[in-house]
Each structure stands twice: as C-alpha cells, then as structure tokens.
C-alpha cells in the first residue's frame, strides 16, 4: 500500500525532472539538447592534468556558454557543481604530487626559489581549473574554497618557514630594478602587457589569488616586524652619537610603506584610499620601531650612561620613544639590575660609582625631566654609597677639583649655588617603598636639582662633608712648600657659596695661618737668614694631625731653637711648638767620594745627622737618641738611606755609614748635580675623618668588652642599643659594624650567625 503511494511520488518527481530537463521542448529534443549541454559543460569543467593534453583549450567557448545556459535553465547548475567538485577531488592528487615535489626540493636546498616556483605552480593549477564566470559567483567561491582547502591541507609545516623567507625576500625585491636570477619567471596568468615596475608584484598577486595573504596575515606581519627589528639592530646598535629615530622613520617611509601597499592595501583604488588602509597598520609598525629602539637603548643604557655626554643623541631618541611606548618600568629595572651587577660591588672604585651616579643623574634628567626614573634608579646607589667609608672623601675631593683623579664630578657649566636642603627621605622606614605607579604626586618637591646638592643629600647632614673638607684642605696646605695656595683660596671661596660661610670659618683660619706664616717667616729671615721655613698653625682650627714625638738632633735642634727665639722676639706673647715629625727637609749629603742631594722626611734627616757623629749605630741607639719613634718607622727611615747607598746594614739591626760608595752603587758626582731624590712617601700628616672616628671608637671598646663579658654573645643591634647608654655615643650601626669587624681582625672578638662574642671566652 505504501508502494502505491511511493510509485506515485516517484512518477511525479520524474515528470517534474523530465519537464525541467526537456524544458517544454517538443518530444525529447529538449532532453537530448540537455545531455549534449551536460556533456560539453562537464568536459569543459573537468579538472585536467596540466602535464597532459591541452585539448580542453580547443573547446568552442560559445558552445560552452550556450551549454551552461541550457543547464542553468534546467536548474542543473548545483548538480553540475557537485559533479565538478567531485571530479576535482578525484584529480587533486595531481596537485599533491607537484606540491610534494617542490617541497622536497625546498627542504633539500632551503632555497626560497622553490617556494616561489611552488606558489606560481599552484596558481597555474588554480587558474587551469577555475570555472568560467557565467557559472556564477557561487560556483566560483565554492571552487576557490575547495581548492584552497585542499592546498592548505597538503602543505607541510616547512612551507610556513619557506613562505616566511619568501615574504622576507620581497623587501629586497621591492628595491631591485630587475628580477634576481632566483626568481622564477612570471606565469602567463600574471603577465601583463607592461612589465611590472617591481619584481615582487607578481608574487603578491599570486599570494592574493591563492588566499595566502589572508591565511598568513600574522606571519606576514611578523616578517615585517622582524625586518624592522633586524634593521634597527644593524643600524643603531652602539651608535649613540647621532639621533636614529628620525632616520628610522624616513627609512620606514621610503622602504617599508611602499612594501606595505602590497600586503595591506592591494585593493586600494586611489592613493587616498591606500593611505587610509595603511594608517592602522602603519601606526602599529611605527610603534614597533619605537618599541624596538627603546628596547635596544634600554639594553644598552648602562654603557650609554658611561658614554655620556657623547651619547646624548641616543638618550634624546629614548626620550621620544618612551613618549610613544611605555617601557619606563623596563628601563628602570634594567638599569637597576645593571647597576647592581656592574657598579655596586666591592671591586668598584667609589670614585667610579660616584662618576656613574652623576652621569645617571644627568642622563635620566634628560630622558625624564620630572625625575621619576632617576628617583627610582638612584635609591639603591645612594644606599650603597652611604655604606662606603670613602664616599664623602671622594665627593669632597671632586668638589675642590682633585686634579689627579681625572674628571670632576662637577659640571663646570653648572652654576655654583648654595646647597639645596632636601626633604629627608627615610629609606629605612619599613613602610617606605618606591611608588608602584609611575609618578607619585609629590616625589619631586624639594628635590635638589644640582649635582652637588644631590650628592651631599646622600647623607643626612652636611657636617661630615665640612669635616672632610677641612681634612683635605689641611693635607694640601701642609704639603705646600712654595707658599702658593691661591688654588685652595679659590676653592674655599666656591665652597663658601655651597656650604655657607659659617661652615667654612675654620678653613678661613687655616688660610689665614698660611699667610701669617709667610709674613712671620719674612720677618724672621730679615733678622737672621735660616734654611727653616715653618708653617705655623693655630691648634683647634686644624684637623687632628698624626701624632709623633721625637727630638731633632744636632744642627736641626739648633736651627729650631734659633727660629723659635726669633719668633718669640717678634711675637712676644707667643711661642712656637714644633711638630717635628711633619714637613720635608732638603739635604745635601757630602761624602768622601760623592754628594747626594735629597728631599726627606724629618726622621730620615734626624738619623743621617746622627751618622755624622759616628759611623756605626744600632737601631736601638738611634731610637734612644731621638726619643719616641716606633721601631718600624725607624727601620723604614734607615732603609731609605740604604736604598740610596749611604748606609749599609752591617749586621742585623746595626747600620754603618758608607763614606766611600761600595762597588756598583757609586752615585755619579761628575757633571750636573743629580736632582734631589724625592723619598717623601704619600703618608698624610692629617688624620682622616675615618681615622679620627676609629680613634674615638676605641673609647667605646671598654663598654663593648664589658657587655660581652657579662652577656656572652650579642647581635650587632643589641650592642648598638646598649652603647647608646655610653656617654656621647653617636655612631651608626654601620660604623659599629665596621669597628666590630676591625676588632675581629685583631682577634678580639669572633662572630657566628650574627652573634658577637669575646675571643678569649
């Protein structure tokens, strides 16, 4: 029963189909015409083998079009398409074979030429199988989709690599006037009556027709990104002496933008349209230029700073880049890391750390005038410097133009101005931390802007600087023998502006002592000509001097007394007190066979004077004659004369005068007298601030010893807390730590796990 209904249904369908195929023609003529049309159309559409016969080409296109029209009227196009796609699937192996062959060649040679040939070959396949437009858009896009799906499914992973290379090669192609030999000839389908202005253009057409532009969009972008990066690394690395950003942007305009037209604005019908199409992608690439340059300069930042001011253009570039890309955090982190690794370590010279710090100040102010970056980078450097014992001395030496240590920290062009008081930042406060957001609202207020103020502000008070200044000035003044201290006077005038008159008052007294000494000496010499020219100083106004007490013997004593007498008769209510161990004496040692001119410290002079009394002395006899001198100093002095061939250590601890030079050690007496040998060692007469502090620290040793005796072991901070009960104790825990470390080296204490104890327990 169902069969009856089914039969009727089938019969009905058949009638419909027949009517459709026969198109109301007489008899079956319509049907016959349909078969003919179907046969022609399918033959025309049949995906042929490119390597096989070209017979299809000879089909009469007029007939083909008519046949398509017939099929269309019979509403048979969908079936034709289905049939065509089915045929395609059967023929796809032909493409697969070609693809595999080209890819095999590529993988063997890594020659991008094979990729170009492959692309052109696939395009040939595509063009060979493409249905005519009369079949309608639907068929065309179904064909394209099927074709591309197949091609993409058979391309091996190595294709991406090769394609990337090929795209990368287009940068050069775009610049070549003629196609390079490796580029395969343009296939007929892409040939135009006029040769393309750029050899890369046919490739782009092929890419587009095969859908490669869409499929590999991000790959093409990454090729461009990498190309930009490579160019920047190549042209800008370590080139800090000129601005690079502008040339890079010109390079983008001249080289990259024309290239970009092909992948990103091919469809544009006018320059205006192209411009708007390129705008978005262009801006992304410009961003990438800034990012890449900024990354490069960030990696190089430490050396750029070393190179400053020569590297100023690089910093200006960086500043501009940072306005476009937010890489400030990276810059801060990189520089902090580099500082930690390359600067803030025990092997670095304090002077070098300071020099680099000052350069960092100058450089980061240039990059970031508000000073946010500097604020973040400076903190660890400042903390580190604060712990170094010689930081202040180095700053001070630079302040007064320490000629020997090279570049001054102070920029000569920077106006001399009073120190700017800064708000004390309490970095030891546990709640203090660098602001997480880039700029705190008030971080810059009260920040000093000149370099010296910034350096001095490393410390809470400027008193330490003033003390160190006094020490340095004293050292220099006492070393002056020609009476010319104009340089120190100029320095003091400058320092007065910075530190204030009151702080430098003591230095004024020192300078006054220098002039007074000169005047006094002129008077004394007018009364009685003497070889002695003392610097007479006001005690209490000079930093503590090295202790040393001995009596100059023989003629030296007579000269001293003579001078003191003349002084007293000139300044009747004053008297002189010699500091015998300080100063320099120029002598001429007249021996039987030679005369030796020499500049020596007083102790050397004292000893050689004694040898004019008798030829042989033991060390103990010599020491007994001059008074309190420690043995090592005595032996050192004697060695000076031994080295000059004047004395000889006859037996241990006994020296004899060599009136006649020993063989080989004779000093020439003929001709011009030899220049005085300078044996003045660089031991300073003035106690450094450090030495003064160590001296004072010894007073507290008794307290520490008592504590450790009673309590056994103590951590440093407990010792510090308890020492605060000792009268006048004002040391920092760092200073205490340094002292304890010194005590440990002397074997007085030991330390384990931060706990200190006396050695003898």
């Amino acid at each position, binding site marked *: 029963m169902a069969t009856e209904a089914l039969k009727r249904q089938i019969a009905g369908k058949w009638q419909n189909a027949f009517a459709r195929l026969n198109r109301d023609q007489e008899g079956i003529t319509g049907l016959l015409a349909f078969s003919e049309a179907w046969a022609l159309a399918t033959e025309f559409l049949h995906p042929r083998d490119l390597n096989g016969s070209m017979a299809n080409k000879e089909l009469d296109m007029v007939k083909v079009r008519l046949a398509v029209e017939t099929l269309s009227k019979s509403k048979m196009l969908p079936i034709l398409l289905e049939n065509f796609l089915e045929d395609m699937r059967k023929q796809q192996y032909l493409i697969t074979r070609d693809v595999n062959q080209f890819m095999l060649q590529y993988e063997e040679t890594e020659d991008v030429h094979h990729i170009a040939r492959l692309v052109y070959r696939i395009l040939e396949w595509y063009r060979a199988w493409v249905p005519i437009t009369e079949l309608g858009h639907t068929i065309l896009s179904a064909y394209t989709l099927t074709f591309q799906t197949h091609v993409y499914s058979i391309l091996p992973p190595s294709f991406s690599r090769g394609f990337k290379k090929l795209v990368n090669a287009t940068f050069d192609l775009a610049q070549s006037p003629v196609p390079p030999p490796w580029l395969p000839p343009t296939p007929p389908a892409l040939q135009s009556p006029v040769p393309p202005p750029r050899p890369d253009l046919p490739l782009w057409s092929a890419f587009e027709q095969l859908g490669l532009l869409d499929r590999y969009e991000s790959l093409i972008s990454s090729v461009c990104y990498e190309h930009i990066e490579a160019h920047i690394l190549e042209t800008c690395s370590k080139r800090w002496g000129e601005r690079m950003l502008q040339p890079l942007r010109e390079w983008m305009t001249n080289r990259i933008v024309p290239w970009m037209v092909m992948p990103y604005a091919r469809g544009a019908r006018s320059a205006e349209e192209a411009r708007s199409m390129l705008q978005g992608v262009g801006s992304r690439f410009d961003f990438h230029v800034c990012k890449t340059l900024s990354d490069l300069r960030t990696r190089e930042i430490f050396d750029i700073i070393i190179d400053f001011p020569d590297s100023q253009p690089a910093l200006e570039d960086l500043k501009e880049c940072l306005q476009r890309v937010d890489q400030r955090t990276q810059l801060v982190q990189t520089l902090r890391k580099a500082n930690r690794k390359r600067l803030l370590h025990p092997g670095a010279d304090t002077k070098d750390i300071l020099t680099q710090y000052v350069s960092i100040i100058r450089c980061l102010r240039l990059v970031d005038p508000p000073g946010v970056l500097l604020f973040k980078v400076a903190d660890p450097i400042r903390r580190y410097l604060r712990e170094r014992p010689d930081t202040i001395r180095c700053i001070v030496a630079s302040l007064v133009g320490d000629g020997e240590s090279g570049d001054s920290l102070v920029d000569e062009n920077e106006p001399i101005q009073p120190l700017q008081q800064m708000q004390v930042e309490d970095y030891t406060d546990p709640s203090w931390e660098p602001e997480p957001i880039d700029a705190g609202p008030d971080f810059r207020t009260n920040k000093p802007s000149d370099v010296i103020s910034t350096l001095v502000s490393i410390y809470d008070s400027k008193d330490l600087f003033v003390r160190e200044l006094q020490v340095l000035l004293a050292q220099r003044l006492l070393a002056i*023998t020609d009476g010319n201290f104009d340089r120190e006077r100029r320095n003091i005038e400058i320092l007065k502006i910075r530190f204030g008159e009151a702080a430098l008052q003591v230095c004024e*007294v020192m300078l006054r002592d220098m002039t007074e000494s000169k005047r006094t000496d002129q008077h004394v010499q007018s009364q009685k000509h003497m070889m002695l020219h003392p610097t007479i100083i*006001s*005690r209490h106004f000079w930093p503590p*001097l090295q202790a040393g007490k001995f009596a100059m013997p023989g003629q030296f004593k007579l*000269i001293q007394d003579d001078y003191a007498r003349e002084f007293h008769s000139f300044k*009747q209510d004053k008297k*002189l*007190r010699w500091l015998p161990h300080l100063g320099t004496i120029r002598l001429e*040692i007249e021996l039987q066979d030679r005369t030796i001119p020499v500049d020596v410290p007083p102790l050397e002079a004292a000893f050689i004077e004694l040898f004019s009394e008798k030829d042989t002395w033991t060390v103990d006899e010599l020491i007994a004659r001059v008074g309190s001198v420690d043995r090592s100093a005595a032996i050192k002095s004697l060695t000076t004369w031994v080295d000059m061939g004047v004395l000889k250590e006859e037996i241990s601890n006994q020296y004899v005068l060599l009136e006649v030079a020993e063989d080989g050690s004779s000093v020439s007496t003929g001709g011009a007298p030899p220049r005085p040998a300078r044996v003045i060692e660089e031991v300073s007469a003035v106690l450094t601030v450090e030495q003064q502090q160590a001296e004072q620290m010894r007073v507290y040793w008794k307290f520490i010893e008592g504590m450790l005796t009673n309590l056994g072991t103590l951590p440093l901070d407990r010792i510090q807390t308890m020492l605060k009960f000792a009268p006048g104790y004002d040391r920092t825990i760092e200073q205490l730590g340094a002292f304890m470390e010194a005590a440990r080296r002397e074997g007085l204490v030991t330390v384990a796990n931060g706990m200190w104890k006396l050695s003898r327990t």
Partner: protein
Amino acid sequence: MKVHVKNWHAIAQWRWDTGASDVDDDGEGDVCGICRVPYEGCCPSCKMPGDDCPLIWGECSHVFHMHCLLQWISTSASKQQCPMDRRPWVTAERKVDANAAR
C-alpha cells in the same frame, strides 16, 4: 760626612706664652674662665684666633680672652672685679724679656 740643610719646611703650632710650663701639653690646653673656650681658640665674638683675639693677664694671675674680660668688666654685675676670684681687676704688665731669654 757632612749634612747640609738646604731647605726645611717644618710645621709648628703657636701657643700663648702664659708663663705656665705647658710645653708638652698635647691636650686642649687651658680655657678662658669666662667663655670656656681654649686660649688658642677665640672668644665668642671673634672668628680669628691669635693676634686678632689676644689674651689679657691680670695681676691676680688669671688670664682671659681680652674681649671676654672687657665685656665682663663693662657689665655692672662685674663691679670691675676678676670673675674668678672677685678681686679688683688689675691688668698685669707682661715681662716678655724674661720669657724670651729662656
């Protein structure tokens, strides 16, 4: 051997010759009884020590910065007496020659 001294750059301190035998004194030295500053320092109103801020000797043997004493004497509370012993202040004649011929 003969040792010839061609030039000697020495360092010395000056001291007030107070007549006291403090030749070997290494400490701070005596202080002015009025301002408690050492004699070789200067009084609170001076900046330069020495000739600019001299000492004054009393017959009573007390010694002060001259400026300190003059300021003290000018106050009515001083009654023109030495601030240390309250005896009438008489400035001593200094016998410099005796010291010079040491």
